[in-house]
C-alpha cells in the first residue's frame, strides 16, 4: 500500500467539526425523544431478554432485572436504545465503508501481540459492562448526555471515568505506547 493511500484511508473528520456534529445529534435526541444518547442500555436490554427467554421466573427473583422489566413493560428489545444502537452499527459501517476502513483485523500496538490485545479488550469490556450498570450509564448515556443536561451525576461519572483512566495509564502504557 502506498503512503498516500494509507493517509487517505485513515483520514478522519476534524475533531471540533465532529464534536459539533455529535452535539447536534445529541440535541436532536433530546428534542425528539426527550432523552440523550446511550449504548450500555441496549446491552442491558439484550441481557434482560436472554435471561427472560431462558427462565421466565428468574426475572422475578432478580431484583435488578425485575426493576428493569417494570420500567420497560412489554418486550425489552422494543426500547429506544436498542433501535439507536442498531443505527450506530449501520452508521459506523457506512462511515467506515466510505472512508475505506472496512477490514477484519485486531488493532494493537506493534509492541504487543494480538493475543495480549484481545485479553485486555475482553477484560476491559467486562469491567466497562459491569461499571456501566453500577454507574447507571456509560460514557454516552451518563457522561456525555448527562453533561449536556448539566446533570451533577453526569459530571461526577465523567470525572471518575477519565480520572481513573488517567491515573492507571502508567500501568498499562506498554499496551499503547
Amino acid at each position, binding site marked *: 500500500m502506498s503512503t498516500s493511500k494509507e493517509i487517505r484511508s485513515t483520514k478522519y473528520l476534524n475533531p471540533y467539526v465532529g464534536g459539533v456534529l455529535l452535539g447536534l445529534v445529541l440535541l436532536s435526541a*433530546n428534542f425528539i425523544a426527550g432523552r440523550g444518547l446511550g449504548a450500555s442500555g441496549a446491552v442491558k436490554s439484550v441481557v434482560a431478554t436472554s435471561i427472560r427467554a431462558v427462565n421466565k421466573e428468574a426475572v422475578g427473583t432478580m431484583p435488578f432485572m425485575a426493576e428493569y422489566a417494570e420500567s420497560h413493560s412489554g418486550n425489552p428489545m*422494543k426500547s429506544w436504545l436498542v433501535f439507536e444502537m442498531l443505527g*450506530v452499527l449501520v452508521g459506523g459501517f457506512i462511515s467506515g465503508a466510505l472512508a475505506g476502513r472496512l477490514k477484519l483485523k485486531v488493532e494493537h500496538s506493534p509492541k504487543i501481540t494480538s493475543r495480549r490485545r484481545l485479553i485486555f479488550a475482553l477484560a476491559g469490556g467486562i469491567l466497562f459492562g459491569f461499571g456501566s450498570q453500577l454507574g447507571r450509564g456509560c460514557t454516552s448515556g451518563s457522561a*456525555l448526555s448527562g453533561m449536556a443536561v448539566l446533570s451533577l451525576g453526569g459530571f461526577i461519572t465523567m470525572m471518575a471515568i477519565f480520572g481513573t483512566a488517567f491515573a492507571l*495509564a502508567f500501568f498499562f502504557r506498554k499496551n499503547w505506547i
Partner: protein
Amino acid sequence: MGPLAPNELISENTNFLFAFLIGVAFGFVLESSGFSSSRKLAGIFYGYDAVVLKVFFTGAITCMLGLLFMGLFGWIDLDMIYVNPTYLTSAIIGGVVMGAGFIMGGFCPGTSFCGAAIGKIDAMVFVGGLFLGVYGFAFTYGWWEKLYLANYLGEPKISQSLGLSDGFFGLILILIALAMFAVAEWAEKKFPREAY
C-alpha cells in the same frame, strides 16, 4: 413544542424510527471522528492523540448550548428532558470501574460497537466483554444493591449544586474546555504519534 415524543406530538413507533436514524448519525459521526480505533481513543491518556477530549467536550457543549437557547426561545420544555439522577456513591465507583475498563480495553460501549461495525476484532471481543459484565452485575446485584442505591441526591443540576445559573455555568464550562483544548493541542505536538 419539544420534546416531541414526551409531548405526544409523535407516536411511540415514530420515536423508535427516529431512534434508529439518530443512531445512524451517532455511529457515523463517531466512526468518522476516529472513535472506531482503540489506539486513537487511548491516545488521550498518553497525550499523543486528544481526539476524545475534543470531540467529547465540543459535543457536550454544543448540545448544552442548544438546549439552553431552545429553552430560552420556548422551543423546548426543559422540564420534560430526562436529567440523569445522581446516586453519588455508585456514580463514583461505577465511573472508576469504567475508567479501568477504558484504559485496559481502549473502548467504551458506544465506540466498541462502532469499531465492531467496521471489522475490528478487538472491538467485537470488547462487546463480548460488555455482555459478560452486564450479566455479572445482574446475577450478583444482591451484593451491590446497597452501594447501588446509596447517597441518592435526586436529579440535581451541577449549576444548582454550585449555586450558579445554568447560563453562567455553561460559560465556565466553555472556558474550561477551551483551556483543555489548548493543552491538548500542545500535547499532541509534544508527544510523537506513530502511524496507525
